[in-house]
C-alpha cells in the first residue's frame, strides 16, 4: 500500500491533569473518507484540533506524508477544517468568505472570483449569492458556504468537526449524501468527526470509534456494524439486544433468563454480552423453530415508518424486535409470542 497521507503515532494530549487523547495510532490513506465517532467528551474534537494545528500535542507525532508537523501552526498546514459553528465571517459576503484563503495567499481578484463562482456551482448555490451577506443565508446554505471556503483553500486533507450537528434531520440527511458526493467529485482526503454513528455509516470509507481518548475500533462501516469489538461499540451502533452471558461448555449461559444459547464461534470468549440486532430477531409461528428461541409477551409496538419495532418482555429482560412493515407481526398486544434467532446472526462482545 502507498504511504499514508496522515500518520498518527502515540498521539496524546493532556489538559492539566486530564488526558483527553491517549496514545492514538492511526493511518489515513490518500483520498479516504475517514470518520471518527464517539460520544461527547471522548476526545474526538481535541484530536482533530491537534491535526488542524489548533492544539499542540503533548506527546506522539503527526506525520503528513512522512513529515512531522507537530509544531507547524495552523496557517502553515496544508489542511483545512470546517468548524462545528462553521465560523463564517459574519461581516463578509458569501463571495468574500469563499475567497478568503485565496486573498490571504495574494491571488488576484479576478482569479479569486472565478474560483469562487466555480465553487458556488459545485455546491449548487446560485451565483447571485456571491454578493449576499452570509448572515442572510439559511442553515443549509451556510454549510455549503463553509465547505466551499474550505475547498477554496485546496487543502490536502479536509477536517470536519461535527458541522451538521445543529441542522434538522431532513436537511442533515441530504447534506450527508451531498458531502459524500463532493468527496467523490474532489477526490480529497476527508476526516470527519461526529457523535452520530448513523451519519458515519452513510458517508465513510472507514470509521474509528473513540471512547475516553482512545480509538476502540477501526474498520469499515460493515465491519463495525457486524463485528463490534465490545459492548460500547455495539451499543453505539444503535439499538441492540444485549444478553449478559457466560461460557458454559459449548453454549452460552444467560443467568437472567436461566437459559443456554448457541452463539457464534469465538475463541477466548469467557464472559460478556451476546449481541443481537433487533432486525435479526423474528417471530416464530407455531411449528417454526430457530437455533435460539425464547417465549415472552408482546408488550408494545412502535411504528418507525418503513419498519415497525416491537418490545417483547421475557421475564425481566426486554427484547427489541424490528420488522419491515410487510413482515409485521399479525396479532395483538399482550399476546404470548415466541421469538428466535440464528447463532450466526448474533455477536459476542467482551465486557
Amino acid at each position: 500500500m502507498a504511504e499514508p497521507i496522515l500518520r498518527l503515532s502515540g498521539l496524546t494530549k493532556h489538559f492539566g491533569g486530564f488526558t483527553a487523547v491517549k496514545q492514538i495510532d492511526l493511518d489515513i490513506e490518500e483520498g479516504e473518507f475517514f470518520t471518527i465517532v464517539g460520544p461527547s467528551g471522548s476526545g474526538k474534537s481535541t484530536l482533530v484540533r491537534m491535526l488542524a494545528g489548533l492544539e499542540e500535542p503533548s506527546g506522539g507525532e503527526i506525520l503528513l506524508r512522512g513529515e512531522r508537523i507537530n509544531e507547524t501552526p495552523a496557517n502553515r498546514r496544508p489542511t483545512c477544517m470546517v468548524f462545528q459553528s462553521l465560523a463564517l465571517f459574519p461581516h463578509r459576503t458569501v463571495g468574500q468568505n469563499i475567497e478568503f484563503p485565496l486573498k490571504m495567499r495574494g491571488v488576484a481578484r479576478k482569479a479569486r472570483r472565478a474560483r469562487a463562482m466555480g465553487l458556488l456551482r459545485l455546491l449548487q448555490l446560485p451565483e447571485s449569492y456571491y454578493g449576499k451577506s452570509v448572515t442572510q443565508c439559511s442553515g443549509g446554505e451556510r454549510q455549503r458556504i463553509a465547505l466551499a471556503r474550505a475547498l477554496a483553500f485546496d487543502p490536502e486533507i479536509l477536517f470536519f468537526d461535527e458541522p451538521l450537528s445543529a441542522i434538522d434531520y431532513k436537511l442533515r440527511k441530504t447534506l450527508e449524501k451531498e458531502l459524500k458526493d463532493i468527496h467523490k467529485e474532489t477526490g480529497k482526503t476527508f476526516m470527519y468527526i461526529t457523535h452520530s454513528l448513523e451519519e458515519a455509516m452513510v458517508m465513510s470509507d472507514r470509521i474509528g470509534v473513540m471512547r475516553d481518548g482512545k480509538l476502540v475500533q477501526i474498520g469499515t462501516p460493515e465491519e463495525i456494524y457486524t463485528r463490534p469489538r465490545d459492548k460500547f461499540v455495539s451499543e453505539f451502533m444503535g439499538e441492540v439486544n444485549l444478553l449478559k452471558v457466560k461460557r458454559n461448555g459449548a453454549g452460552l449461559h444467560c443467568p437472567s433468563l436461566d437459559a443456554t444459547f448457541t452463539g457464534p464461534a469465538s475463541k477466548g470468549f469467557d464472559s460478556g454480552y451476546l449481541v443481537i440486532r433487533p432486525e435479526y430477531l423474528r417471530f416464530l409461528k407455531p411449528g417454526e423453530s430457530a437455533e435460539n428461541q425464547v417465549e415472552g409477551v408482546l408488550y408494545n409496538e412502535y411504528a418507525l415508518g418503513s419498519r415497525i419495532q416491537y418490545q417483547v418482555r421475557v421475564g425481566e429482560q426486554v427484547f427489541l424486535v424490528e420488522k419491515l412493515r410487510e413482515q409485521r407481526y399479525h396479532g395483538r398486544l399482550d399476546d404470548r409470542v415466541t421469538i428466535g434467532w440464528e447463532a450466526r446472526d448474533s455477536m459476542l462482545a467482551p465486557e
Partner: protein
Amino acid sequence: MSTLSEAVAETSVRPARRMPRRRLFSPGLLAALPVLALLAIGFLAPLIAVTAFSFAEPRSFTVFGAPTLENYRTIFSPANTVYLSFVWSLVFAALAVVLLALLCYPVAYGLAHIFGRWANLITLLLVFPLFISENIRLFGWVLFFIKNGVLDGTLKSLFGLELQSILFTPPVIVFGMVYVYLPFMLFPMVLGLSMVPREVVEAAGDLGASRLQTFREVELPLAMPGFIIGGLLTFVLAVGAVAESKVLGGQSVIVITHDIEIAFTYAQNWPLGAALSVLLTAVVGTLVLLVLRYLDLDRILGRR
C-alpha cells in the same frame, strides 16, 4: 328584561371601547414613561433653555426679549480667540482617544481572552479608582508631578536629575484625560473583543491567514463596534472635560468648557456661555452622528 338587555348592550360595547385604550397605553410605552419623563426634565428642558438663552440679549438674564444673533456674532468675530479653545478641546480629546485605544487594546485583549479567572479581579482593580472623586485623584497627580513632588524629588535624589516640571503643560492635561477616562475606553473594548467568536479567529488562521492578517481581516472589524463605542464615549467625555485642564494644566491652556464656565460665572454673560454650549453641542453631535451612521447598534446589543 331591561336589565338583561342592558347587560347585553354593555358587554357588546365593552370590546369596542377597550380597543383604542389598549393601544394608547401599550406596555412598552408604560415601561418607557419614567425614562421619557426623566429625559424630558433632565435633558430636553435644559437643552431648550440653553438654546433659548443663546439667542438672548448679551449679559441679560432673561430669555423673553427679542431674539438676537449678537452672541454668535461675538464668537465668530475675528477679534475673538475663543476658536482656540475649541481647537484645544478637540485636539486634546482626539489625542486622548488615540492614546487610550493604543493603551487599552492589549489590556482589553487580555481581559477578554487571556486572563481567565483573573479577569474579574483585574476589572475590579480598574474600577476601584472610580469610587474616589475625580478632583481628588487629579490633585493627587498634582502632588506627583509638581516641582519637588514625588516624580521630581525621586529623580533628583536617586539620579541627581533636574527636570523642568511638566505640570501645568498640555501633555499633562492629555495624561489626565487618559487616566480619568481609561475605564470608559477599556470596557467597551473588552465587550467588542469578546463579541469575536474564538472559532472565527481560529478559522482565519486555519485558512492560511497570518496573525496580522487575522487581526486586520477578522478581529478588528468584528470588534470594531466596541472600539467605536469606547472611542465615542471617551471623546465626548474628554471634549466636555474641564477639571484636567484646570487642575493639571493650571491656566496654561483654556479649553472650551472652561470658557463656558467663565462666561456663566465670573463674566456673568449667560447668553454668551449658552451660545458656546450650543456650538460645542453641534460640533460634537455632528461627529457622533457621523460615526453612528456606520455602526449597527443592534449588533452591539446582541440582536442580529
